[in-house]
């Protein structure tokens, strides 16, 4: 995608998002979240603040603290596991079997955490009242509202959740909730539910490096809040390319390559249990 298309897309996304959010906040279905987030307020920011994290950022998994859970490890049952509740562990085991069987999640949005832990870049685009975050892989978008609003308890749950941001000194703090629980937190299949309250603390540790400390608080799945520290490198000369998830393209690709490799192909459904 040429850069010229990014701005119109961002504007379009913002335009489209306004009625969507408005509707969501007036809708009555409640997310029965166990962690109240309505007390978390965002604060207005200056235009100078907004430029701090603008740009394209590429994940740097090699910089992660080795003692933490490794969200980049694709193998099931990594050495360090999150503090699962019994329900969370059972769900994770179920997810791991689902994944190991080659099951897929079609083109559903990845949610925010799994997007962060996919080795593809994202772009931060500051706008007047929000930041737009665009992940190249599967073209997932997220808004981080910076106009001082709170997260309402009746926000409609969604794959990408609902996010607000505020400054604490030189740290940009993003609070997210209203996830629908239909995605994994990571490629390993760590679960999340509608109870998830995700906090991100963004900080530039040098001119080219963004550190984000994630705290995942989902009492149904995890016995206590737990953290992941991830690093991203600024790519000043990069623009994001188009990589939407398109089932027709995936199917065509599957048919050609899987046929060549004598694989059975896919039916786009979870495999039957034997």
């Amino acid at each position: 995608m040429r850069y010229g298309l990014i701005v119109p897309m961002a504007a379009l996304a913002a335009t489209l998002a306004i009625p969507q959010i408005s509707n969501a906040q007036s809708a009555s279905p409640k997310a029965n979240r166990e962690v109240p987030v309505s007390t978390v307020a965002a604060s207005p920011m200056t235009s100078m603040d907004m430029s701090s994290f603008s740009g394209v950022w590429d994940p740097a998994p090699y910089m992660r603290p080795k003692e933490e859970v490794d969200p980049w490890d694709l193998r099931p049952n990594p050495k360090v596991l999150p503090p699962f509740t019994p329900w969370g562990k059972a769900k994770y085991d179920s997810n791991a079997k689902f994944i190991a069987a080659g099951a897929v999640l079609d083109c559903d949005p990845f949610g925010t955490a799994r997007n962060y832990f996919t080795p593809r870049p994202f772009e931060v685009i500051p706008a007047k009242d929000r930041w737009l975050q665009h992940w190249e892989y599967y073209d997932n978008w997220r808004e981080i509202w910076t106009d001082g609003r709170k997260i309402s308890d009746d926000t409609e749950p969604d794959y990408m959740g609902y996010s607000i941001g505020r400054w604490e000194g030189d740290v940009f703090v993003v609070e997210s909730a209203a996830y629908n629980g239909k995605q994994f937190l990571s490629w390993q299949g760590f679960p999340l539910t509608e109870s998830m309250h995700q906090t991100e603390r963004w900080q530039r540790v040098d001119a080219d490096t963004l550190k984000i400390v994630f705290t995942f608080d989902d009492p149904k799945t995890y016995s206590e809040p737990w953290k992941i520290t991830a690093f991203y490198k600024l790519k000043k000369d990069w623009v994001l390319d188009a990589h939407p998830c398109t089932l027709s393209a995936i199917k065509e690709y599957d048919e050609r390559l899987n046929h060549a490799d004598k694989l059975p192909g896919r039916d786009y459904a979870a495999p039957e249990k034997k």
Partner: protein
Amino acid sequence: MKSKTGFGLVLSVAGLWLAGLPAFAHHGGSDYDAQHPVALKGTVKEFDWNNPHCQIFVDVKDDKGNVVAWSIETYAPAVMKRAGWTRETLHAGDEVTITVIPSKKGNPVGMARKLVLPNGKELTGGVLGEQPPQ
């Protein structure tokens, strides 16, 4: 096959994700042997520059002179562009050398890790995420 340092590093990182592809695949399904890349010299039949992954179809003569039709995938176009590839990088009839990590099934299927064009120009198969400084 011996790898140069940089290429080996690319393979190790790519291998982590490639090894995980079957288990975590949203598409595809081939399980690649990242530890044993092979260099294929052949003639391009088709180059499909599309998401989710580009595909290269190459006729390669085996040791007995038989033509084997290889199906080779790459990362997505977005990743390949950053490695210097374009949709015009390959054309039918091009004589190329492609280093691939092959399917563990032993079928003529692989994942491209390096390309040598007819003019001698070399391109890597791209990388996912930032690599440690050398």
